[in-house]
């Protein structure tokens, strides 16, 4: 997004070029008024239903609140406890691993498929629908389908492998394959949205630019590197942000398919938060965990932005 963000909006700069006459000042004032009226509902809504709860959660993280009436201020106790908590450390490790594997792979595959779908091909509607179906399906439904696919006895996964003579695997209950099995589902389910966004962006890439590049003798790869890739910049950042938030939030999938097991092999942050909050009823502790998660997401997005800046400067 940085490309779009850095550029001052034309609406903001345009009025300054006009001589500050009485009319234009009046016009600007009416625009400003309209602006605040139009944005007020969104500010009100996000304030009540997001900002206040976040502040609330941060406050709770310094207490030992647990749904009861009594609670005490405990300072950074929750935070220091967390780093001595083996379950939390496992969840942290698994979540980061999940994000680091799933995000690049799914972004690369999506871009690749989007480039393919952006050609003049037959059956476009079919392909788009095929790739998007997993995305429109509820995660609860997706998880149940894959639970059945990974079923060690009569599931599709082992049935398919046996066609090639491979030994059956126990997928979700084997510590070695449990997390990778979830990653496959995560990647599979998340492709659709990214493909659609990329596809839309690709169709917005100026045809003239691509054509003039190819007239200048630029090959397919050169056209991609010099024209298409830079034009995708803002969209890449959008996809990256939503992917980071999405992968850090992975919950339904894990909750339905493994409940974090075997052991803590697939315990992710949100699952651990959920268990601390609603099963152990340690709301303060769970809140501290969510604060750490928020910081982690911010760090990841910051890194993503740095990467993108470096890319743009090249």
């Amino acid at each position, binding site marked *: 997004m940085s490309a779009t963000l850095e550029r001052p909006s034309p609406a903001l700069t345009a009025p300054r070029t006009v001589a500050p006459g009485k009319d234009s000042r009046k016009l600007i004032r009416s625009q400003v008024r309209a602006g605040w009226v139009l944005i007020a509902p*969104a500010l009100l809504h996000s304030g009540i239903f997001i900002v206040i709860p976040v502040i609330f959660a941060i406050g709770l993280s310094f207490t030992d609140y647990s749904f009861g009436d009594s609670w005490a201020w405990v300072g950074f106790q929750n935070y220091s406890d967390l780093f001595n908590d083996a379950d939390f450390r496992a969840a942290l490790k698994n979540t980061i691993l999940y994000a680091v594997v799933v995000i690049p792979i799914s972004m690369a595959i999506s871009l690749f498929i989007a480039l393919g779908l952006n050609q003049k091909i037959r059956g476009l509607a079919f392909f*788009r629908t095929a790739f998007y179906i997993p995305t429109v399906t509820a995660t609860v439904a997706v998880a149940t389908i894959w639970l059945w696919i990974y079923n060690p006895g009569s599931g599709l996964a082992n049935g398919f492998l046996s066609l090639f003579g491979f030994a059956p695997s126990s997928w979700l209950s084997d510590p070695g394959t449990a997390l990778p099995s979830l990653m496959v589902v995560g990647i599979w389910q998340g492709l659709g949205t990214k493909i659609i966004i990329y596809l839309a962006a690709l169709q917005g890439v100026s045809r003239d630019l691509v054509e003039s590049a190819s007239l200048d003798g630029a090959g397919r790869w050169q056209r991609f590197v010099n024209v298409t890739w830079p034009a995708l910049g803002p969209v890449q950042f959008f996809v990256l942000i939503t992917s980071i938030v999405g992968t850090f939030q992975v919950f339904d999938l894990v909750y339905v398919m493994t409940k974090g097991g075997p052991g803590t092999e697939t315990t992710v942050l949100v699952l651990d938060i959920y268990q601390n909050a609603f099963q152990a009823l340690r709301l303060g502790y769970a809140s501290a965990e969510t604060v750490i998660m928020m910081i982690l997401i911010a760090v990841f997005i910051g890194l993503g932005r740095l990467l993108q800046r470096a890319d743009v400067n090249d």
Partner: protein
Amino acid sequence: MTSATVSVVSETKESTVRTGRIVLYVALTVGAILMITPFLWMVLTAFKSELEITKFSWLPGELRWNNFVEAMQTAPFLRYFRNSLIIAVGETAFTLAVCTTAGYALAKLPIRGAKALLSYFILLLMVPFQIILVPLFLIVKSIPLFGGNNILGQGGIGWLNSWWGLIIPLGAAPLFTFLARQFYVSIPNELAQAARVDGLGEFGIFWRIMTPLIKPALITICVFQIEAAWNGFLWPLMITTSDALRPLQLGLAIFAQNPAEVQWPYLMAGTALATLPMIVMFVFAQKRFVEGMANVGIKG
């Protein structure tokens, strides 16, 4: 250069193009099959008998349509459907109203700190829903003057167990404000200027000039929001206590409750029924959805 060499060159070029096409089609087809197979597997399982699912097989011996009927009888599926529909429509209407207005203001109107406000919404994008779950519950419970609450939000249940609670907090996500803003930005200001010269007011420009131009964005927002609403699970589970208001996904959960004795054919039948509407919606919306999204970028 003789005409012979020209034709040779163009022939080899043509044949590489053709090979490229074939590779492209093969890759896309394999990909598409990988995406669809799990659903095919779901539908096939939905027709199988309890006995057939004990070992791996593709096709059911006979199509047991009864699985669907029996699955429907195990839970009030029609009511779940209706509830999901109300939630989806409500959330989407609310989202459209709030997010297009905010997106437009951020993109086109010279409000002080527009940049900071944009950063604010991007920052909100990063807040995972699970983080605010508990405080959100407490806030929704304390909405003043609803559900027997007094003006301070005490004494009653607020928006718990109500359509308000199901619809409003999860509508108007910052993502959609951001999305709408991105689309409005790409529309040139000259259009608005021309309308201003013609004497149209700011709200008229927003509603009659700019918003019709981002119709594709509106469709995109609709599809995303309907999807999110239709697939919601944790929030409805937390704030409703009776079947009367509960949506489809909670109905599904009834079947999956005990992993040890899951009735796979019923579960897959129920899952198929819950999935179908979203697939149908996308099949109908996909053309406008994608092409439209792209058009905004260039035509503006």
